[in-house]
């Protein structure tokens, strides 16, 4: 081992990159296996169907910003930050590969690059800690942290990746004492603009730097504030935010304007530590056996800060991620997305804890660190074996056939009622039909009360140089009661699966279809093996 290390001759970081690549190859179950799926075969949740539809429409209309009529009931613009969409849009246009085949690969690439940078982030702090923190990265692929990729939280992952890059760049300025000038300011501003354009929430970059500045100013005021480089770093931090917002002002204002109506609803207190906040939010205890090690690492880092009387920039990033991730304690219960990158950000505490524990046993040397990191990685993979999920789909080839038929053969203003499909519980699936769509309220349907709900959401419209939030209910009825057969005449087409896995539902659907045809309200115009399309007479 000693001679191998000598041969590496100072390029031991390449072993780290190799380790990260190996961890990424272990994420094989998450990877899409083809680049030529004919329909979105890996999209099974509301968010990934939703974002995929945005990009598919952008590629079709060659307009990135426009939100089609069928999505919001009015021609408007997207209220989302657009970096993820524009990136996939560009590649899709350039390569002629369908957007749904590109999204997973793009996100995994961002995760790979940000993991490599985070490794170097820790490497600059302490090389041994960086190697010992590597096993924690594997948790990026386990439930529930991996849902950031699989459940379509792609804008969040893009934002978090830009956050890692910005933090790393700032940490280099701190550690390598790089001279700060206007070009460095533009560089950092571009990275901040990237964060704004990916997801506004990731401006919590601010807090990392504030913790670092405030902590060091309190602990070692004289040395910290007397250093001119530190003062320049503080000015750079303020200026880069101003310029970052200026670079991405359209993204920034479009999203800010859309916040207006619903911002109050976002503030909810759920002061719980271990339980999940909702159906799929990762919790601290998803770290399993690693959770106590991380907690101990936090404790050791406090001792380090107390003894050295300074906060390393790397620890402030870890603390910030921990504080923001536990936003549920101070009113941000819906803001759980930073937790998707906890395996990355909290790996510093994991690595630091192992480093302290190992060094307490004997003098810690490289010939012990690398085997320790390797063995712990294998143990982590064994412990979490089988917890790496795979993508699943909601769109079947029968659904896709119908959506294509509807988009080609019906009038652009037609309204479609989707009656029942066992897999139609995520309503954004109907946007592939590219028409104004209504879906029956499934709970009411089972109870016998028929209500159709519009499948759409709010957008924004330009008002001078600013934006105004617009929602479908301002322009069209978003709920239509169809308990009476005559009310089915509100829709131009009615689409339904003919069978369900629940016999009672099958009976109910066939009765409705039979009644509609018998009463001369609709007639069957197209059908495949399982799905029927009826046109209003």
């Amino acid at each position, binding site marked *: 081992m000693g001679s191998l290390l000598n041969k590496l001759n100072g390029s031991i970081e390449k072993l780290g*990159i190799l380790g990260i*690549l190996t961890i990424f*190859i272990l994420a*094989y179950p998450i*990877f899409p*296996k*083809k*680049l*030529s799926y004919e329909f979105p075969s890996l999209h099974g949740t509301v968010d990934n169907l939703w974002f995929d539809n945005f990009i598919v429409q952008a590629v079709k209309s*060659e*307009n*990135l*910003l426009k939100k089609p009529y069928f999505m919001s009931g009015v021609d408007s613009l997207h209220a989302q930050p*657009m*970096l993820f969409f*524009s*990136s996939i*849009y*560009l*590649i899709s*246009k*350039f*390569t*002629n*590969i369908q957007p749904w*085949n*590109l999204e997973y*690969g793009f996100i995994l*690439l961002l995760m790979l*690059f940000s993991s*490599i*940078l985070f490794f*170097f982030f820790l490497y600059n702090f302490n090389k041994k800690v960086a190697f010992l923190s590597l096993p924690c990265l594997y948790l990026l692929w386990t439930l529930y942290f991996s849902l950031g990729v699989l459940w379509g939280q792609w804008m969040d992952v893009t934002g978090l*990746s*830009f956050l890692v*890059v910005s933090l*790393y*760049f700032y940490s*280099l300025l701190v550690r*390598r004492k*790089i*001279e700060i000038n206007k*070009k*460095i300011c*533009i*560089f950092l501003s*571009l*990275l901040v*603009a*990237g964060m704004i*354009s990916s997801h506004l929430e990731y401006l919590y970059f601010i807090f990392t730097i504030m913790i670092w500045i405030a902590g060091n100013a309190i602990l070692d005021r004289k040395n910290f504030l007397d250093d001119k480089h530190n003062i320049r770093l503080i000015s750079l931090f303020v200026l880069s935010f101003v310029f970052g917002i200026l*670079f*991405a002002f*359209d*993204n920034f204002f479009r999203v800010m304007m859309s916040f207006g109506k619903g911002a109050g609803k976002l503030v909810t207190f759920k002061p719980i530590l271990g339980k999940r906040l909702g159906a799929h939010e990762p919790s601290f205890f998803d770290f399993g056996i690693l959770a106590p090690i991380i907690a101990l690492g936090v404790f050791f880092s406090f001792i380090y800060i107390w003894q050295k009387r300074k906060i390393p920039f790397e620890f402030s990033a870890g603390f910030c991620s921990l504080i923001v991730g536990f936003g549920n304690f101070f009113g941000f219960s819906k803001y759980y997305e930073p937790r998707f990158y906890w395996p990355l950000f909290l790996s510093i505490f994991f690595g630091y804890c192992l480093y302290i524990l190992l060094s307490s046993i004997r003098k810690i040397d490289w010939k012990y660190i690398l085997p320790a990191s390797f063995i712990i990685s294998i143990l982590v993979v064994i412990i979490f074996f089988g917890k790496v999920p795979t993508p699943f789909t909601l769109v079947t080839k029968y659904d896709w056939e119908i959506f294509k038929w509807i988009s080609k053969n019906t009038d652009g203003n037609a309204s479609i009622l989707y009656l029942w499909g066992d897999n139609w519980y995520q309503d954004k699936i109907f946007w592939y039909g590219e028409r104004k769509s209504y879906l029956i309220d499934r709970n009411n349907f089972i109870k016998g009360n028929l209500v159709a709900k519009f499948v759409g959401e709010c957008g924004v419209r330009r008002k001078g140089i600013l934006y105004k939030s617009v929602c479908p209910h301002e322009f069209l009825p978003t709920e239509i009661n169809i308990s009476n057969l005559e009310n089915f005449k509100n829709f131009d087409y009615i689409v339904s699966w003919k069978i369900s896995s629940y016999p009672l539902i099958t009976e109910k659907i066939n009765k409705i279809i039979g009644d509609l045809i018998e009463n001369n309200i609709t007639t069957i115009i197209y059908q495949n093996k399982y799905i029927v399309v009826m046109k209003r007479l």
Partner: protein
Amino acid sequence: MNREKSFFLPFAILFLCILVMFYQEDIANILKLYFSYLYLYLLPGYATVFSLLDKNTIKKFTGIEIFIFSFFIGLIISHLVVLYLTIFNFRNVLIYYLFPGVYSILLLCFLWYKKRIR
């Protein structure tokens, strides 16, 4: 500059091998995708980084740092170009095809001009 080259080539080849390994059925698509990433993001990214940061600053970064910074800077540059061209109604796809090349050539000309003035 040697440090950049020493990282970029092996990493690019290794990455291509991994991609081919994963998507064995779609070699043609993989190559298209691979070169589109290089052209759309890495080219404008590298051009921006080398024209924005001076020689002494670049020396303080390692090859992998320059490589990843370039990729992310390329992402944001491409995004801002597409976004603002859309806002001002320049939506011809040809512009998107051309901009990474034209943008990089312009920056290189600017660098050459600056060097000549000195």
